[in-house]
């Protein structure tokens, strides 16, 4: 069996990349070609139009595609998550200074951010915050962070910046902050332009991140792929393999980023400010076999967040169509 799997180069594509590069797919008798794409929209379109068999995709975007809310009509299934958490909100050093939160704790940071968002909105210069795609946990986490501090997403200018351009955008003052996945927050801190203000895992601990999304007609042929994915995820979740994994991901073929920054993300040993402040967060980004499981309530969470972001009008009506999308049973069936 020969498959084309798409991905966006990010730390949480580890299991998909290792599936191929670690020989796990070959051991199942499969030939898998990895296709790196520069945007989530292109992954979604190629998957919907049958140019890819599967993809590492933002869970909300995959669901939106399946529901007909985004891109060409598609019938998709998601048998597994690919990682847990891994996002963070990074702000410019100027914004962090202006926020001056009472502490680094989430409620203080959220209050300081929401207060500043309100001041800037009132002054006619709304804060500009970036996400990675409208249909993403990143968008919803920004909304939740502001809500936690008593603010609203409507009071900021929400834009999308491709993660590899976040550092330059922050440096040039085109944006005030962003929510992206690993390793791009660490890259901004290492470049001396950003301060990690909040971790996704603190804002929404169980939120679905990327999922392995397959064309629905792959269902009957998914078992060998899912067995290989389990083996690859186990390998990725083993701390002794992290230095090798960081080198693999950091290589030019994939992320083209300093492997040490990737490794610190895997270990949850994050430098949060250019002054060297470090924060230990072992669950910042979780890889491994357990991270493949899709928690019950995942679909509901996404539908409710879509509705809160005014991307979906009627949650109850969408529930039926969403029911067949998450297929943890397919993963559970192959051991």
């Amino acid at each position, binding site marked *: 069996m020969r498959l084309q799997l798409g991905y966006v180069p990010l730390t949480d594509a580890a299991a998909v990349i290792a599936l191929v590069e670690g020989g796990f797919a070959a051991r199942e008798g499969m030939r898998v070609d990895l296709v790196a794409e*520069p945007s989530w929209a292109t992954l979604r379109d190629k998957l919907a139009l049958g140019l890819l068999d599967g993809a590492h995709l933002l869970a909300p975007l995959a669901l939106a595609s399946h529901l007909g809310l985004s891109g060409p009509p598609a019938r998709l299934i998601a048998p597994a998550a690919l990682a847990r958490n891994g996002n963070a909100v990074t702000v410019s050093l100027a914004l962090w200074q202006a926020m001056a939160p009472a502490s680094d704790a989430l409620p203080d940071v959220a209050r300081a951010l929401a207060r500043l968002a309100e001041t800037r909105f009132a002054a006619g210069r709304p804060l500009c915050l970036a996400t990675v795609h409208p249909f993403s946990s990143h968008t919803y986490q920004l909304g939740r962070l502001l809500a936690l501090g008593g603010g609203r997403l409507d009071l900021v200018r929400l*834009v999308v910046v491709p993660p590899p351009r976040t550092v330059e955008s922050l440096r*040039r003052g085109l944006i005030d902050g962003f929510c992206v996945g690993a390793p791009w927050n660490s890259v901004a801190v290492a470049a001396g332009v950003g301060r990690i203000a909040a971790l996704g895992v603190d804002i929404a601990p169980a939120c679905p991140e990327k999922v392995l999304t397959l064309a629905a007609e792959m269902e009957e042929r998914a078992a060998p792929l899912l067995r290989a994915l389990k083996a690859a995820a186990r390998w990725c979740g083993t701390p002794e393999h992290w230095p090798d994994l960081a080198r693999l991901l950091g290589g030019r073929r994939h992320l083209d980023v300093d492997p040490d920054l990737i490794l610190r993300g895997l270990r949850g040993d994050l430098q949060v400010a250019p002054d060297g402040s470090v924060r230990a967060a072992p669950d910042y980004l979780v890889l491994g076999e357990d991270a493949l499981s899709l928690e019950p309530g995942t679909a509901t969470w996404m539908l409710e967040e879509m509705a809160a972001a005014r991307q979906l009008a009627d949650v109850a009506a969408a529930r039926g169509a969403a029911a067949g999308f998450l297929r943890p049973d397919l993963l559970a069936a192959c051991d």
Partner: protein
Amino acid sequence: MPDLASPSPLPSPEQHLTIAVVDPSRARAAVLEEGLRTVEGARVVVIPDTVDLLDRLSALSPDVVVIHLESPSRDLLEQMFGVSRLVERPVAMFVDRSDVPMMQAAVDAGISAYVVDGLKAERIKPIIDIAILRFNAFARLQRELTEARSELADRKLIDRAKGILMTARGLSEDEAYRQMRRKAMNEKRKIVDIARAIVTAADLLG
């Protein structure tokens, strides 16, 4: 007496239309721009695919954005135009989402388009058609150019190998070529591979 309450007339097909072209390849963008200039009433603006794309697009406020699939900025457009039908100015991609063959042709050619709502299908279809034609033609040209380049490089390599054989073994040009061809046929390899081996060996042996 004119009825003051009547709605403003529908926009005529000749009305101005601003098309933005975003492409990481400047050469390809130029080819597309030239093609789109033939669309009646269209103003075509090429916007560099750089970090300040968003500000430039906001300032231009185009009716249509044609963007290459290789651009990381597609996600930015999805936010900017609003993918949801609930927002004020929703966007239709490829005019009609049920027009799957057209989407397929566009994606095969490497393009995507974002269109503000209210633009009529008959105004958008020619734009997409031109973009598909131009991108396919560009890809073909590029392929031909690559082939021509590699053919030229092959010929140069074979000439060098021929020269080496002629000097080392005192052969005529024809005889040197015949020997390389025979070796290639016997080993089921391309003559350029044999030539490369000769050149490499000669380089190593000084």
